[in-house]
């Protein structure tokens, strides 16, 4: 299920996997985050292949974002034991709500309106967005697509399809950077790896196959609903 959601929306699936691991399987939060990042690596490999076949990944945006999101992921995974994230979660929930509303209200850009790579002229924005997506990825085990996709769509003016496709590649690299640190810290334990990877690969393939063919409006609405769900969940967790 996490794989299908992740593949369809260009996320990693962590927003489904982390709650499942912690609430149902009673996995400690830090381990669930680390395992989720490992799952995102597998999901990214499959999902990005499907989007790549369709020409829905802009590598010139992917590369600089990977650099800064990897730095962010390393910083985030190093900070995870130091931060009690209540305030962060509430702020993040508000930002997600605003983003969800913006995505639904914004008009879609057609392919013909895009010339070259929008990321080329916005290097500072790309760097800042990617850095913070990397930090959130490692702190919450969510891949970073929830920041990358809205930012590419709303700020960098990519179409929602290219934003999703590019995100599937970036989150895999970001998750790897975070996973390496978690592995060295002993937080990442590959106990449930087989089950999670098989589920993510199957779900990621199905979700990205479906997502690459879905209508833009449907994608935007589903994405906004997922963001709002995440916002409510994070807000409730933050005020506990």
């Amino acid at each position, binding site marked *: 299920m996490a794989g299908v959601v992740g593949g369809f929306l260009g996320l990693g699936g962590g927003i489904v996997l982390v709650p499942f691991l912690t609430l149902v399987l009673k996995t400690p939060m830090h381990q669930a985050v680390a395992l989720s990042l490992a799952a995102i690596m597998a999901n990214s490999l499959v999902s990005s292949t499907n989007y790549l*076949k369709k020409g829905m990944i802009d590598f010139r945006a992917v590369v600089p974002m990977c650099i800064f999101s990897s730095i962010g992921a390393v910083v985030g995974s190093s900070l995870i034991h130091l931060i009690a994230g209540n305030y962060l979660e509430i702020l993040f929930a508000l930002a997600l709500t605003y983003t969800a509303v913006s995505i639904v209200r914004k008009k879609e850009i057609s392919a013909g309106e895009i010339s070259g790579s929008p990321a080329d002229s916005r290097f500072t924005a790309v760097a800042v967005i990617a850095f913070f997506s990397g930090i959130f990825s490692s702190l919450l085990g969510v891949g970073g697509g929830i920041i990358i996709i809205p930012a590419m769509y709303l700020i960098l003016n990519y179409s929602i399809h290219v934003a999703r496709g590019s995100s599937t590649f970036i989150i895999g690299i970001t998750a790897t950077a975070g996973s390496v640190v978690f592995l060295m810290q002993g937080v990442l334990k*590959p106990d449930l790896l087989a089950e999670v990877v098989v589920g993510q690969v199957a779900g990621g393939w199905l979700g990205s196959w479906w997502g690459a063919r879905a209508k833009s409006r449907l994608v935007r609405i589903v994405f906004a609903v997922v963001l709002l769900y995440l916002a409510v969940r994070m807000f409730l967790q933050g005020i506990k």
Partner: protein
Amino acid sequence: MGEYQSDDRIVRLQQVLTGIILAAVAVAAAVSFWSDTWGARLDFFSLLLLILAAPVRLIALARYFRHQNNSRYALLSYMVIVVMALSVVFHFLT
């Protein structure tokens, strides 16, 4: 859709990597029925393969940019690997 150029070599590489990782995970799951110790070792090996897939993909990306005569982005692709490697070095130093 189809706004950007695809690259068949990266697609094929990612499909091969997926196949290798799935095979490793399947073997680890099968072996864990007989031996927990060996199952855990093979799970760890699968995890290492997953991690190593990222630098392999980035090297393929660098080769793609070099093929396009875009040495700046080829260099940036290698820089991502350097960032990952530095995080390992930094961990051992601290």
